[in-house]
């Protein structure tokens, strides 16, 4: 068996190139691919962060506007304050629209939840009341409309409307019972306090 120097050197050269491919080229190529992925991720994250940061002034302004709008209906007040405001609103509407408040009682039956509130954390804490008014047909309707546009957010549904006993010297009147759900913002789940506020 003869030792063929050119073939042996060619074999060695092939081995060197193969070793270089396996030990140098491929690991470095993998590192480069990883760096490209990191670059893309960093660019995406930076663009997202900058885009979000650009929205901060607009978001701040919108939040102020929304807070002002919601401030008019006091949905962020505490429970007792909301109830007091509602009672004052009912008394004011009754006085102005010439209707008598016959009854206000807390409704213990569960309130039907609108679609928007069927989330795991409810948006509103609803305070349910049954309110009975007595007065002329048009006055009762006007009183309800006034309550609806007042400074308390509430959903008012008719429970019953019936002719009232006629009193001497008075025109025809009716008794109107309403289910009222006063709305206030539920405690945020992030800082949930189980005790009633």
């Amino acid at each position, binding site marked *: 068996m003869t030792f063929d*120097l*050119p073939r*042996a*050197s060619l074999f*060695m*050269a*092939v081995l*060197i*190139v193969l070793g*270089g*491919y396996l030990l*140098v*080229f491929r690991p*470095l*190529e993998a*590192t*480069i691919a990883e*760096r*490209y992925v*990191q*670059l893309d991720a*960093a*660019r995406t994250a*930076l663009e*997202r*962060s900058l885009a*979000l*940061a650009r*929205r*901060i002034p607009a*978001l*701040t302004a919108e*939040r102020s506007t*929304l*807070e002002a*709008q*919601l401030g008019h209906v006091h*949905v962020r007040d505490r429970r007792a304050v909301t109830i007091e405001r509602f009672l004052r609103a009912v008394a004011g509407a009754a006085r102005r629209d010439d209707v008598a408040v016959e009854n206000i009682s807390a409704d213990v039956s569960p309130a*039907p939840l*609108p679609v*928007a*509130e069927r989330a795991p954390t409810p948006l*509103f804490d609803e305070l349910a009341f049954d309110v009975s008014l007595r007065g002329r047909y048009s006055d009762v*309707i006007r009183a*309800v*409309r006034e309550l*609806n*546009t007042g400074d308390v*957010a*509430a959903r*008012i*549904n*008719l*429970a*019953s*409307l*019936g*002719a009232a006993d006629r009193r001497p010297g008075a025109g025809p009147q009716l008794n109107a019972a309403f289910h009222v*759900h006063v*709305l206030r913002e539920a405690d945020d789940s992030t800082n949930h306090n189980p005790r009633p506020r």
Partner: protein
Amino acid sequence: MIRFNYHQSPYERLFGAAPAALLTERLRIPLATIGAALLTVTATWSIQSHRVAGLENELNPLQLGVHAASADELRAERLTASVARLRALRAGVAAARRETLAATNTIALIGNDLPPQTWLTNVGSTPNGTWTIDGRSTRVGEIGTMLRRLQSIDDGATARLVSIAATGRTGRVLDFVIGWDRRP
């Protein structure tokens, strides 16, 4: 004329008859082949290393930028969540008010559209949208008119006659009950 090289190199003295040119010529191609292979590997390593270094130079400032912007991002995300909640609150309040207005308008419409010889004695509704309208009339035809008018208030609802019964001493007054289903 014969020339003698009196200044022989150590290599020539060691190998004697084997001339340096002959040795170089036999090894030239193998050495060149191996050298080329080594050069290829080295060049590859050099190029790839420069690429890695270049990418890292590009990556480092970007990562610093991402880190610096993360505080703003967090603030913006909190603001977005807060604004979304406030929007939902506003929408909920608006929906409740629309619902109340619709209910009030319905009561007003029912009362305003009563036929001349017809009056209501009781109107009841349940939260799921079912209404019961009790009334009295002196004419059967006007109860039909009442039914038709109720149907025209809300095309999506179903108005149906539940009962008509004569009442009073002479039996000329009719008690009627109309069911009105406004369930969505």
